[in-house]
């Protein structure tokens, strides 16, 4: 998918009015690469002269310069401040990326994660010096187990996809422990790409299941594919069409009757937290994205954290380390022995994403049992409000893919753009000029030109109204035939559409000195 074409490379007519000597435009400041600001020998950290010592590097002293630029602290601070100003963020506006749960990131979480008793603690300290850290992890596990209704939780996975891997590994280990060599995983076509990728890494063949006309997994097709070689079903619930799998109890029963496990992708747990426990849906393993439901920041792409809640049958296979309570307090089980003899082993260095654990627990304690239930309700209410505002009444212009109420996100397709010459991508880019981050586009794959919108519970009604008015207004403009305007969008951003085709065909993945010389010559 690329939105760029050669025909777009002419500047918009109005650009002469915004042309400046520097290339800057008011607060939009151009910024060179770090490597282009080198004052050789300069340094932004004051370090003492090393005491005299004889090298014991075994003759392996570095002989060649590294090539790092020298900058002072003010230059570095300005550089990264300017870069930050080229980013959209949840702090600046609604970020309605479906399936990503871009909610407000509370700053209390940042403060607690930086307490020296959490941030300045080494993972290999003696157990007697880390009782508070283990208590925090133990408490987080208790909250997650209570919210999911499941008896065990593996906390080490570093992200959602890592959690999926953990869950699928425990499933395969449990099957093999009973001498079962099933080799097939059923994955709905609407699933996140990580689901089939994870199952493949786990050594499984992937068998896709179609959706039914109501946007849910086709139960009949599922039953037809279930058999003695099916290891598990990987289902997302609520699914990526923003719908609750209303036949989920029958799905679970069928999967279990076939001797398979039921894995659930919990990326969309925000819709049901505090209202529905996955254990009550017959789920055997479910990963939770702490960076979605539990508000730890996305950080421009990570770090995340993906704990996996496990049914009793899978719990013995959970990855190391385990935390158990003994007479001496909390202890770390780091070896595959005793209670943990059946573990799949270690999935990550040390003990998991502690910094994310502190943030998530901080968030959960702030909301409490009552607040978390309200989170789910407001998230679903906001999504349905947008659904109605965008597809019904006088102004509603979008085409909802599966009519009826939705959960925390709502799926539209590009029927409303039919014959306009405007694509989903163009529509999203026009939204950028209006000051909004676009919705998720072209996912899920089960509808044409998908637009998946998830507002989350941390948007106000005024924010939703402004977003809905803008989307509806753009739809009117598209239908009125302003194709050129859409194709040229975005015009007001630090960069306009970028040439992704050339980027992939001739990859330039790092700076080299000669590149800057060419840039300067331009």
């Amino acid at each position, binding site marked *: 998918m690329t939105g760029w074409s050669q025909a777009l*490379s002419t500047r918009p007519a109005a650009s002469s009015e915004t042309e400046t000597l520097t*290339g800057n435009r008011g607060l939009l400041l151009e*910024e060179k690469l770090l*490597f282009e600001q080198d004052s050789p020998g300069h340094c*932004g950290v004051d370090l003492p002269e090393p005491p005299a010592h004889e*090298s014991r590097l075994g003759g392996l002293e570095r002989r*060649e*310069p590294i090539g790092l*630029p*020298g*900058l002072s602290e003010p230059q570095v*601070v300005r550089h990264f401040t300017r*870069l930050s*100003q080229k*980013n959209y963020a949840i702090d600046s506006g609604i970020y309605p990326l479906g399936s990503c749960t871009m909610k407000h990131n509370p700053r209390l979480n940042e403060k*607690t994660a930086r307490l*020296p008793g959490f941030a*300045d603690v080494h*993972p*290999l*300290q003696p157990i007697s*010096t880390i009782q*508070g*850290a283990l208590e925090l992890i133990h408490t987080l596990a208790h909250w997650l187990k209570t*919210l999911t209704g499941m008896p065990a939780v593996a906390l080490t996975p*570093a*992200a*959602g*996809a890592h959690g999926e891997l953990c869950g699928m590994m425990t499933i395969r280990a449990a099957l093999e422990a009973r001498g079962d060599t099933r080799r097939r995983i059923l994955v709905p076509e609407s699933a*996140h*790409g990580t689901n*089939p*990728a994870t199952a493949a*890494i*786990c050594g499984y063949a992937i068998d896709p299941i179609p959706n039914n006309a109501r946007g849910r997994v086709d139960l009949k097709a599922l039953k037809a594919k279930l058999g003695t070689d099916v290891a598990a079903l990987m289902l997302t619930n609520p699914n990526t069409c923003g719908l609750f799998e209303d036949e989920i*109890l029958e799905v679970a029963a069928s999967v279990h009757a076939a001797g398979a496990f039921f894995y659930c992708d919990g990326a969309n747990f925000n819709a*049901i937290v505090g209202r*529905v426990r996955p254990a009550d849906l017959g789920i055997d393993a479910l990963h939770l994205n702490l960076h979605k439901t539990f508000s730890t920041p996305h950080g*421009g*792409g*990570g770090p*995340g954290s993906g704990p996996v809640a496990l049914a009793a049958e899978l719990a013995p296979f959970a990855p190391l380390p385990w935390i158990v309570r003994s007479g001496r307090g909390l202890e770390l089980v780091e070896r595959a022995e005793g209670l943990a003899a059946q573990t799949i082993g270690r999935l990550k*260095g040390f003990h998991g994403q502690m*910094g*994310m654990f*502190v943030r998530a627990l901080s968030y959960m*304690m*702030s909301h*409490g*049992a009552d607040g978390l239930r309200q989170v789910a309700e407001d998230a679903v209410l906001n999504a349905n409000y947008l659904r109605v505002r965008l597809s019904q009444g006088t102004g509603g212009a979008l085409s909802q893919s599966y009519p009826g*109420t939705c959960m925390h996100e709502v799926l539209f397709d590009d029927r409303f753009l039919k014959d306009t010459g405007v694509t989903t991508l163009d529509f999203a880019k026009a939204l950028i000029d209006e000051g909004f981050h676009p919705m998720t586009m072209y996912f899920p794959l089960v509808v044409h030109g998908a637009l998946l919108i998830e507002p989350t519970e941390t948007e*106000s*009604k005024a*924010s939703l109204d402004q977003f809905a008015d803008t989307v509806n207004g753009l739809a009117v403009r598209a239908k009125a035939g302003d194709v050129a305007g859409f194709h040229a969008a975005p015009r007001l951003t630090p*960069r306009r559409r*970028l*040439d992704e085709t050339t980027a992939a065909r001739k*990859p330039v*993945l*790092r700076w080299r000195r000669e590149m800057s010389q060419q840039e300067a010559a331009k």
Partner: protein
Amino acid sequence: MRYLPLTPVHRAEMLASIGIASIDDLFADVPPAARRAGLVDLPLAQGEIEVERALSRMAAKNVAAGSVPFFIGGGAYRHHVPAAVDHLIQRGEFLTSYTPYQPEISQGTLQALFEFQTQVALLTGMEVANASLYDGATACAEAVAMAHRITRRGKAVLSGGLHPHYREVCETYAQFSGLEVQALDPAPGQIENLNIDSDTACVVVQNPDFFGELRDWSALAARCHQQGALLVVMVTEIVSLGAVKPPGEMGADIVAAEGQGIGNALNFGGPYVGLFAAREQHVRQMPGRLAGQTTDADGRRGWVLTLSTREQHIRREKATSNICTNSGLCALAFTIHLALLGEAGLTRLAQLNHAAACNLADRLAAVPGVRLVNDSFFNEFALRLPIPAADAVAALAEKGVLGGVAASRFYPEHHDLADLLLVAATETVTEEDIDICTAMLAEVLR
């Protein structure tokens, strides 16, 4: 609740707009048997004061590294992080943005990733680097998987000097991917016999190794290449590359590392940042995200995520990895810290670490009964003690010194390592800390 903008009045208005009477109507698709009427059995909402108090009490039960003489390494290192780093990564535009899939409004993250990739390539002496992985251990497992894809061979040989967590993660992944992992026993201070044959996809070594020893792997690289295998070099202490010959100059094909030591706090083990670099010819087999340079519709330089046809959201089950995240903010912290250090700063920082470790090694080795194992080291080394190292660690902790980590914590079955203590010193260690540590160790061994 302070995080929820909707008021009861808004909620009522919105329900009316939707045309339903109650919020429960929006959960009608949940099977009745699975609906929960009441609240889950967890505490109710608390204010900022209460939450901060409760978590501060938990934190206070830990011994913070900065509050005691501290000498633990073993794959995570306590370095000083300049104040500007944490300030900058907390800017909301970095902290609260998503993966830069919309490049026009994510140029900040993308340019920073491009700078990060360049820094990692320069440090490791490699041609290209990705936008980071979860941590060093998972980067190691990904390196093994990548070597398998490139060579289409089924066996990975792991040095006994590889961090035991890295070995264990490789073994976990291999159980499921069907790769054979041949892990050698730890042999501190000895030269290993790493067998390479026509089925070997890669040999994985670490520099400095888990016991602190430095080696030139150039001859091994040549041997790997003769046999059609790849050499993977792991680095767990990234600051070492400010002083030590980089793996790229030794002929490594893949270099993966733990980047925590630059820009990131200890955080009890995570989140950290996995670094991953390779030869340019193998870039399409690399896991993880890549930022690339391009131009926009006006011909101006800009950045995008690129080569995404390797990735799961396009390739699904045929992707090079299931990874859907990098360690974005930790990578940013790394980039900012390294930008502040620059060539001169990193070089000096590495010298300070080495000098502190030399000083500590001399002082501790002079304690009766203690023997330094290493011929060479950077900022961490191994000592043989006259008593089990685990006992020494516990006794030192009681005296308020976090004096290292016992090898037996990782290798309880290797009785020959029971007396082995790993000790690290960074620029944060003072002369007084070293005095106290030396005196306390002498007392413990008396």
